[in-house]
């Protein structure tokens, strides 16, 4: 159970009931997220990525910290990510090679080359594939949580929404529905300062996302989204509260989107000094490393080793993925229905 370097007697106690192994695991997920995205960026520049590339640089902690608060495993909690929640997917058990295959449109990708980037799910592992239309996953997750409640299963749903996405009608309908029925749902609102090029002040007239949910009669907290342990702790509380049947809980994570909306976006609308400040003073991984080392919960060498193992893992995954074939054209026609009706026939064959 214990790793090779135990904390010294002087170390402050580890918060939130976490073990040292868990702290290191969290670190590994943070690093895995960033390294995988860096590799994807390289592949994007080589024109190997099909479609856009969406980075979560600077937001890794809120993804990893929140998903880490869920109970993972078959038939446990269920999470629905946004495109920037690659870290949450990794925590729930998505393999880096699956994500690479998606971005590279390989036959063996989880969607078989049908839907883009991290739009894929695995109900067994506990995550649900999103669609692009912002807000729509809130009602769907409300329904998943409703099923948990109707069947009296001790399971919780968790769904993410952006500072922009909260303006969508489906968000309102979904969170209100969930709140009115007190289903076990946790909603994580990501205040990352931008919705594409639009700042929050054009999106809504309150200051915090937590203010935006006051309408629903649910508790709402704002946490430092770049403090992975704070995010973990707040989510853990919300998840357990929901599991106890106390209904919906909202967590706002304050963070910053340090890259453009997608790789093609040069972010000219972003004040340079803001970017610099968040990169230098508030990088979630740097902060976590300082905390781990400063508190004596980990040693530098351990982290270096994790970094190295992550690099090797990603290298191997990328190499493997690059050698894989594209999907066969006719595979496009299957699976529209469970029980294929005549409409799925190849019409042109008759010509």
């Amino acid at each position, binding site marked *: 159970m214990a790793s090779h370097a135990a904390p010294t007697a002087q170390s402050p106690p580890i918060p939130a009931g976490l073990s040292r192994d868990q702290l290191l695991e969290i670190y590994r997920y943070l690093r895995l997220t960033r390294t995988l995205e860096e590799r994807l960026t390289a592949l994007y520049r080589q024109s190997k990525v099909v479609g856009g590339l969406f980075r979560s640089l600077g937001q890794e902690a809120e993804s990893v910290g929140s998903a880490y608060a869920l109970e993972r495993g078959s038939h446990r909690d269920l999470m629905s990510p946004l495109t920037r929640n690659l870290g949450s997917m990794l925590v729930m058990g998505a393999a880096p090679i699956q994500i690479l295959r998606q971005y590279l449109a390989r036959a063996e990708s989880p*969607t078989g080359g*049908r*839907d883009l980037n991290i*739009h*894929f*799910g695995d*109900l067994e592992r506990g995550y*649900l*594939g999103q*669609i*692009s*239309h912002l807000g*729509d996953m*809130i*009602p*769907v*997750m*409300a*329904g*998943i*949580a*409703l*099923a*948990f409640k*109707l*069947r009296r299963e001790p399971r919780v749903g968790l769904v993410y929404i952006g500072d922009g996405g909260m303006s969508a*009608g*489906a968000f309102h*309908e*979904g969170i*209100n*529905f969930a709140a*009115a*029925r007190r289903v076990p749902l946790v909603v994580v609102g990501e205040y990352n300062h931008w919705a594409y090029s639009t700042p929050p002040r054009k999106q809504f007239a309150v200051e915090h996302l937590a203010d935006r949910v006051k309408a629903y009669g649910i508790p709402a907290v704002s946490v430092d989204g770049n403090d992975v342990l704070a995010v973990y702790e707040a989510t853990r509380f919300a998840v357990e509260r929901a599991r106890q049947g106390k209904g919906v809980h909202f967590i706002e994570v304050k963070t910053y989107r340090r890259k453009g909306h997608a790789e093609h976006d040069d972010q000219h609308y972003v004040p340079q000094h803001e970017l610099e400040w968040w990169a230098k003073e508030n990088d979630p991984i740097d902060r976590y490393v300082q905390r781990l080392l400063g508190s004596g919960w980990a040693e530098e060498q351990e982290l270096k080793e994790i970094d190295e193992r992550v690099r090797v893992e990603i290298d191997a995954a990328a190499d493997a993925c690059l050698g894989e074939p594209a999907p066969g054209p006719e595979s496009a026609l299957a*699976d*529209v*229905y*469970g*029980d294929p*009706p*005549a*409409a799925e026939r190849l019409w042109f064959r*008759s010509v």
Partner: protein
Amino acid sequence: MAEVTYLEALRQGLWEEMERDERVFILGEDVGSYGGAFKVTEGFAKQFGEERVIDTPISEAAIVGAAAGAAHMGMRPVAEMQFIDFISCAYDMLTNYVATARYRAGLPTPMVVRGPCGGYVRGGPFHSQNVEAAFFHTPGLKIVYPATARDAKGLVKSAIRDDDPVIYLEHKWLYRRIKERLPEDEEILTPIGAARVAHEGNDLSVVTYGATLWKSLEAAEQLDKDGVSVEVLDLRTLLPLDDAAIMRSVKKTNKLLIVHEDTRTGGLAGEIAARVNEQAFEWLDGPIMRVTAHDVPLPYAPTLEDFVLPQTGDIVKAARWLAAY
């Protein structure tokens, strides 16, 4: 054999499925203690409990989205739209999320969205709509549209058992107007995807569905007296269309009149005409014709509604013209 209305048959179908399978539950506006605006679920909340007959906020996107989420988890939700006109508020959810779930993510989404549709009841532009054309264009959805009490029951049961999302359109003009004797000891399951010959004939095929089935049957009787023998096909399932049944009839009569209550431009008749062209062109002895509503929002004043919607007389007139072609 008890005589039941179309509405009662639908009710029975829902009731039987609720009894048979505890995964089935109902959600919608006022479906619980009130029993739904048209009383389709009257008594359900009392029998099955408020957890299985859920009164929701006025949020069609959430109703449909939540049904989809529950369906992913293995439930069998039946979502009611108070009037089918309000399904437009869930258009995004249905076409983008629900319809694609299996294809893009392998997610089974066995759910039914049902609600009262159609005109002839002075409901005006927002309580009389025919929405099949809005969803007919979306691969991944199925659409059924019963015209008889038997199919009202048989199709709702089949829709609930189907592993894919099904839009079930029930015509409010038929609710209490159509009665039929249904066997009590037989489980009625109308297969999805299968049309039905409602009236045999040789001179001309009328392909139709919903309320206009009855107008077409009336027309067929009148035409019979003139010696024009009309075959009437009740589609029952609109998506997927039963091409085979359509072609069988067209190849027999060599003439096709398509009748639907929906407006003309972009209505289903277009697709049917195109398919017959592709699959039975050589058999056609005359142009495929359509009798439909006019291309306007549906007005409520009786004089206007009667004029805009297709009537028996319009079918007779068009059929006669085509028979003489």
